[in-house]
């Protein structure tokens, strides 16, 4: 069955979500990945928004985390205070999985979604943290969507908006952050993880038709590729559920 790159990326992220996870999602592909997991492989995952909605039915696809579509048929409609306290909560916070995106990422999975260039005289200004820094600070693991480009996989970020492992295995502890950190990076060429000892990014898999060399060519820093394998293409079931149940009007795909 034919599939698009966006569909493959969405399904790769969905496969990382397990039953019991509380999935924090942003807009666009990250929201779609959470919906896909719920419909395909993790029916007992819970979708959760920083705006304060939890366990939304999502009968129609939301286009923003404040879309009225997230407010329909929820377990509770609260506000930002509820949502962020849930993530910082010592009991349920550890079950939250964050799905994030950014303009730049470094080898330790730190993210920049604020500026390109000097913060006080930026070449390009982006939206800023929103809840991303909060999620990256609090939750046990996060999944990050990135486009493979040299200017995005940076040796040094122009601005560190959301913490990954900061500067290495003890980075978060030294800074005073709770444990946790980035788990997977889903790109348009393959999927990365993080070495359990060094906390540096490693290649886990490449998409069919792509080589590890091509991936390295699109990064400013080097990563280990010896543990990587080719990623399984989406199954017919996965694609059908994604297209028909999650985004029937093609608003995101």
């Amino acid at each position, binding site marked *: 069955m034919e599939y698009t790159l966006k569909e493959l990326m969405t399904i790769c992220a969905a496969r990382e979500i397990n039953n019991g996870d509380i999935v924090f999602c942003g807009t*666009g592909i990250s929201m779609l990945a959470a919906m896909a997991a719920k419909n395909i492989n993790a029916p007992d995952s819970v979708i959760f928004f920083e705006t304060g909605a939890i366990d939304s039915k999502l009968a129609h696809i939301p*286009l923003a985390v*404040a879309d009225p*579509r997230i407010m*329909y048929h929820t377990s509770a409609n609260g506000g930002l205070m509820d949502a962020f306290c849930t993530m910082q909560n010592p009991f349920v916070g550890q079950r939250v999985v964050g799905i994030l995106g950014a303009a730049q990422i470094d080898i330790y999975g730190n993210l920049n979604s604020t500026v390109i260039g000097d913060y006080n005289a930026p070449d390009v200004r982006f939206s800023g943290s929103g809840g991303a820094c909060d999620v990256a600070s609090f939750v046990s693991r996060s999944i990050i969507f990135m486009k493979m480009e040299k200017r995005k996989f940076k040796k040094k970020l122009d601005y560190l908006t959301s913490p990954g492992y900061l500067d290495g295995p003890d*980075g978060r502890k030294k800074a*005073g952050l709770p444990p946790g950190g980035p788990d997977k990076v889903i790109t348009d060429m393959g999927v990365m993880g993080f070495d359990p000892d060094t906390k540096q990014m490693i290649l886990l898999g490449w998409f069919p038709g792509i080589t590890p060399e091509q991936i390295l060519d699109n990064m400013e820093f080097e990563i280990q590729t010896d543990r990587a394998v080719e990623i399984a293409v989406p199954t017919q079931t996965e694609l059908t559920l994604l297209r028909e149940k999650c985004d029937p009007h093609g608003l995101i795909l």
Partner: protein
Amino acid sequence: MKTDENKVMRLKEAVEKYVTNGCHLSIGGFTLNRNPMAAVHEIIRQRKKNLHVYAHSNGQGVDELIGGGCVSHLEIAYGGTGKFMPTCIRFRKAVEAQTLMVEDYSNFQMTLRFMAGAMGVPFLPTRSSLGTDIINKWGFSENFRKENPRIPDEKLVVMDNPFDGWCDTEKVVLVPAINPDVTIIHVQTADVRGNCRMEGLTFADVEQAKASRVLIVTCEDLVDEEYLKTDPDRNQIPFIHATAVVKVPFGAYPTACFRYYDYDPVYMNAYVRAAHDDKEFEQFLNDMVYPHQTHADLLDHVGRHRLESIRADRSCGYAKDLDRK
């Protein structure tokens, strides 16, 4: 304060009286939902200047205020409206041109800052942003902070946990309280004294409202005081915080208002197209904002057909069949 005071005003008067040039303003809502857009447009129409704006993720409202030339300083977590505008365009242009001074926080930090203001404490702690540039890099200079008595000398303060590792925590970040001069929120229902009922998510509207010296409430339905008191469990803000109440049907338009109407994709897309170019944006303001005396006039200009297309279905709270491309 008289407990039976009728606070109903016209929007023009409320903005004239309370939103003064250079004042510290916060607006409610989130990205494309329940922004007090009628009030935002009135502020632009009255050509208010040098506003110091506090926002967490108030996309459309903040971007129009910036585009209208009303804002000189902005403390913010996120400028965007999701799919329509991943980064607010007039915000981005103003920051890149350095005509707008910005200080970045996270959404939780901004929420806690309003909460601290509402509680009457100088700061609240969190563990968010430790080790990041949100702490290390300042948009407002040290000098600017020292010379401005309305903002604290420090952006954020990292502190060792004074309870000696209690709750497995070594360090916390202290976020400073905000007490705006004026907060403006748009709610579904208010009464003439200023009791408020919101439906759907409340975002940080309650904290923003209670942190503020002046609270202007715009509402879809204005009811007499008995109505909200017969079902008080559903009310979030008691009248003691409110200063002015204004009835403005479709007052959040073009952003959404749960159970009343959806966002308007036609407006949002036209806005995005215009916002990329200074001349086209000026034209957009000349069409959509300046010529209309009131929000009702703006709605007349938009036309009944489009308002009907975004009207919420009773069953779900939004417009199920809306074309959102």
